[in-house]
């Protein structure tokens, strides 16, 4: 079995491009060009250079000694939190802005939930001098004020999504509508491995730098390119896609995807799509998604705005149904506790998204000689207010 995309844009039975005809030319233009553009030496050179000098790659692979002692296994943290703008999101936006330039686009749109992808998009638009419009749910705008300010300071226009639940799902709908209304000059930078083909594959390829680095960094430290486990949190799933990418077909390496259980998987306030979701179509691809029996998409919940999405990308749907990856769910409380623990054991304040990945250390037993790589997808500065409120700091 293959865990990568096939030539029709499917991971197993998931993926495809379920889009209105109004979007077909845009998506088709991208589909026909993305692999060609990514293979151009000039593209690779510019992408690699920016990742190195602008983003600050490679991000360290850090052996977390005190965390390892506590959990009696060898834990490495892939420090995506040290990237410029504070998360893995920038890897993809750098790639897509270069793609947009080469396709002759002059206007960029994006959706954002917590604001990390919006900030990463606003950043690369400033870098390249392109007009940037970020759609963000009205509710998210209110609860992520610092990131809204960052985007504005970077020159982006933040447009509130006023429809539906006024969160990420609706911001995505609004961005797609903007694209329908502006089909010629606009590129839509999707922030996760979701959306119509080729987005899930393109975003995964831009994020694949994460697992590429893990391979050689681990080889330097441990004399092997293969950890026993790679662990990452999954909302849409872009940081997990990046951390898993070079290990997808290497079944010696176990993959663990961590979803947000919110207030409990069956509490009615959860985002654990692998447990609560069924096959369906959202934002242009066939995947697993949380929905009513009638096929209406339901509202997810997580304390972490970045995991608060009612579906997962089609790659993850395939990894789940095929059994290639183990999917675990972590509650708000478990995640917050692990975030505090990492802060105090290692001096690293993680994004609450990443805290979900860390929290499996309490849930799952590893052997003493196992090498466990946890993708620390982002830093916790943006979440400080949440941590303050939760722990009454």
């Amino acid at each position: 079995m293959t865990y990568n995309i096939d030539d029709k844009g499917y991971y197993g039975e998931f993926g495809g491009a379920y889009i209105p005809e109004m979007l077909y030319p845009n998506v088709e233009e991208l589909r026909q060009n993305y692999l060609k553009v990514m293979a151009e030496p000039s593209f690779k050179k510019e992408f690699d250079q920016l990742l190195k000098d602008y983003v600050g790659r490679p991000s360290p692979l850090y052996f977390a000694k005190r965390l390892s002692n506590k959990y009696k296994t060898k834990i490495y943290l892939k420090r995506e939190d040290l990237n410029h703008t504070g998360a893995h999101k920038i890897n993809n936006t750098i790639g897509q802005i270069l793609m947009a330039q080469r396709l002759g686009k002059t206007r960029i749109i994006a959706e954002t939930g917590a604001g990390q992808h919006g900030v990463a998009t606003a950043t690369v638009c400033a870098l390249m001098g392109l007009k940037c419009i970020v759609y963000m749910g009205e509710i998210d705008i209110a609860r992520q004020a610092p990131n809204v300010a960052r985007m504005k300071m970077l020159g982006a226009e933040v447009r509130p999504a006023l429809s539906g639940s006024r969160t990420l799902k609706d911001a995505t709908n609004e961005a797609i509508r903007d694209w329908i209304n502006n089909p010629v000059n606009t590129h839509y930078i999707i922030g996760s491995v979701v959306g119509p083909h080729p987005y899930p594959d393109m975003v995964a390829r831009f994020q694949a730098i994460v697992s590429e680095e893990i391979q050689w960094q681990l080889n330097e430290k441990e004399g092997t390119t293969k950890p026993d486990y790679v662990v990452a949190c999954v909302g849409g799933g872009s940081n997990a896609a990046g951390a898993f990418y070079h290990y997808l077909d290497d079944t010696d390496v176990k993959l663990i995807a961590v979803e947000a259980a919110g207030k409990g998987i069956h509490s009615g306030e959860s985002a654990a799509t692998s447990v609560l979701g069924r096959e369906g179509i959202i934002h242009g691809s066939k995947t697993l998604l949380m929905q009513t029996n009638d096929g209406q998409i339901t509202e997810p919940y997580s304390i972490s705005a970045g995991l608060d999405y009612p579906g997962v990308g089609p790659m993850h749907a395939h990894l789940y149904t095929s059994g290639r990856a183990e999917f675990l769910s972590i509650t708000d409380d478990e995640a917050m506790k692990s975030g505090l623990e990492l802060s105090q054991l290692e001096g690293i304040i993680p994004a609450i998204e990443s805290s979900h990945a860390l929290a499996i250390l309490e849930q799952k037993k590893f052997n003493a000689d196992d090498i466990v790589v946890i993708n620390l997808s982002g830093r916790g500065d943006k979440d400080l207010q949440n941590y303050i409120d939760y722990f009454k700091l």
Partner: protein
Amino acid sequence: MNRINQKLKKDKKLLSIYFSAGYPNLNDSVSIIQNLEKSGVDMIEIGLPFSDPLADGPTIQASSTQALKNGMTTEILFNQLKDIRNTVSIPLIIMGYFNPMLQYGVEAFCKKCQDIGIDGLIIPDLPVDVYNEQYKATFEKYGLINVFLITPQTSNERINFIDSISEGFIYMVSSASVTGSSSGFGNEQTAYFKRIADMNLKNPQIVGFGISNNETFTQATQFAKGAIIGSAFIKHLLNNPIHKIKDFVNSIKY
């Protein structure tokens, strides 16, 4: 012969009206359909509401959201429509997004449509190639015409392909837009309408998006067989009782 094709044979410009089932009130659907037919509308698109409608503008999305709040479901709509053919004879089309149909079961959905007397489906996010490879046979088995969309950006090659697999009409989206976002047609759109008319497709074209009054209806049907009105009708429903539908239809056609 399917009612859509019978209607398309008529030597007149057709007016098709879209409304969201379950709006403004859950049980208005049948009464709206009956009033539309009585008022001289030629064809009706019954919108099956969806929580995340990508191609709809704010007016239709708001009406779908309200319909869902009112409790509309696929099953309820089918129950409301079960005797519709006792009183209504014009073509009825269900327009909706693919996910609710997929959850109902595509074959079960199609069978139900045939039982009721639905003539066709418009599913904006069901890709042409997926339909052609996976669902065409099922639609045909239950006598349903699937209507495809084209836009000003659709290539001639793709339009010819869509024409080749269509058996009713082609839904010609007037401009690059979601529903309800345009007011009046300019030279660019007229040129597009003419370009498509000159392609001499086997299927007639019906224009949708951006038609709201007699002027835009007349412009849209200068080169096409008919036009579809959605958002403007929904706005009318919001402000007027159902028995006033005739006033709206008269303002478009006469």
